[in-house]
């Protein structure tokens, strides 16, 4: 049973289906062990946007308040996508990289400063 309802075959409306985002989709990004941002970030993005453009235009400005953002080099970073290791193709779109609606990307960087001791 997928819900405890008092009539059979109850189906709930899916409130966050991609059609509700007017041509965009949601992408979540967690910068692992960088807890100055209290939670992973939620972005609205065009699925046709190139991955490199997403990094330059969306993610970089969002991470700017972090003291380590200047030392952050995406070329040195590792990625995970929805729980799997992931090697992005920079010129391919989010969609072509397999980054779907409500996918979670994880950014994993080498030690950049002493802030890492407290996972800031």
């Amino acid at each position, binding site marked *: *049973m*997928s*819900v*405890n*309802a*008092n009539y059979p075959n*109850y*189906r*709930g*409306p*899916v*409130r*966050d*289906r991609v059609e*509700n*985002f*007017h041509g*965009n989709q*949601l992408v*979540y990004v*967690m910068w*692992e*062990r960088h*807890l*100055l*941002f*209290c*939670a*992973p*970030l*939620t*972005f*609205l993005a065009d699925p046709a946007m190139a991955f490199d453009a997403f990094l330059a235009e969306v993610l970089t400005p*969002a991470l700017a*308040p972090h*003291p380590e953002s200047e030392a952050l080099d995406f070329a040195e970073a590792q990625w995970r996508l*929805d*729980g799997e290791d992931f090697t992005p193709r920079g010129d391919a779109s989010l969609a072509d990289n397999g980054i*779907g*609606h*409500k*996918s*979670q990307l994880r950014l994993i960087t080498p030690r950049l400063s002493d*802030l890492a*001791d*407290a*996972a*800031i």
Partner: protein
Amino acid sequence: MNAKTSKRLNMKERYRIMTRDLGWEPSYQRYEDIFPQEGFEGIKITDWDQWEDPFRLTMDNYWKFQAEKERKLYAIFDAVSQNNGQMKISDPRYLNAVKLFITAVTPLEYNAYKGYARVGRQFGGVGARIACQMQSIDELRHTQTQIHAMSHYNKYFGGMHDFPHMFDRVWYLSVPKSFFEDASTAGPFEFLTAISFSFEYVLTNLLFLPFMSGAAYNGDMNTVTFGFSAQSDEARHMTLGLEIIKFILEQHEDNVPIIQQWLDKWLWRGYRLLSIVGMMMDYMLPNKVMSWAEAWTMYYEEAGGALFKELERYGIRPPKYADQTVIGKDHVSHQAWFIFYQYGHATAFNTWVPTAKEMDWLSEKYPDTFDRLYRPRFELLAEKAARGERFYNNTLPQLCQVCQIPLAITEPDDDTLLSHRDTVHDGERYHFCSDGCHDIFQHEPEKYVQAWLPVHQILQGNCGGADMEKVIGDYYRIEMGEDNLDFEGSAEQRRWAAWKQAV
């Protein structure tokens, strides 16, 4: 003379007439048509007459007791307002706890009133119906007395002016709202297990005692007084909560696994909800009462541990993931305050970095976690603020599909990694903060696919557009610079200083 005495009913007889005797056997309608929600959850009641009323209280006496309590309560409210009670509080930062209470907790009381009125209608047993009726009226009374208690502060401080509107819209208030709506949209037996047992019986001490003691330690006479006035009602609700669980478990062995699943679910939901109480205790009270970790140890691990031992004979085990709450007690209050601090432009109260003295208190109370993880974070924030770069997070956080809290809580076995679970249901991906919330979704996905997640609603354009200032100001009705932002430099701080100087 003898004849006159014999006309008076003895207590037991009078009680029977005023409660059980109010019911009747239906003759021309089917039982299941009169009580259409009693069966669908799978709970089997073989004999409603086995219900023991926890309190021998009848409606006529109930009104008398409550009226007396109201008279005392309102006499004190009058005295507080005539004596400028708002100036007697320890520190204006304290009022932020009151703002949190009126926006997050008082609307729950109102929802409880509606919830008990509904489920009271759904039970075939008259004893259960009367108990729900009384609790329903209690909850409405609590709503009213809380509003009246805080209305005095509302004349002098910000953040309280639109609390029912905010409850329905503001991002963090979706946490208590969705908690209660989950219970209210469940069947009547799950509602009672969730609210009467898991919340009122197991967790209520962790909600009311911190707020009421916090008020007492910080000179807030109105909140202390409504707390006292509600105490005998709360005692009745707690007794009812335990009675309900024992009654259902004794009725049929098939009820045991259903109740167990609800206990697992509602302890976890309640625990997540109480994160805001933890941060209130550890960060918002200028004069501290006890730490969240101490409160959890005393009221959940010790008192709750004894309770679940008592329920063992029915085949009930302690709630799943209770061990994670024990690990979490050293983290959640810090993590919760840190969320509010960085989204302090979108809160109807002020936030701040703890003072050096407060940080020392936190180090002492949290020797394993505070200095290692949280002090460095607050020191960095203090430095940023001193440079005029007070940190506000201008992006939106990822939320848990079930509890709706940002995914800001760390893994039970790795306190530097944010806890995250996900699943794909019917082609759509869903994200959770924990195993507990993930399991709740898996059990009833069709319920939680509908969750109104504030971040997603903003990004769908349903909260007044893409401009966050408009969302906060127009849609939430949080007045920029009046209700929100850092306490340092706030309107509240300036006004307080001016009032103190005038005295």
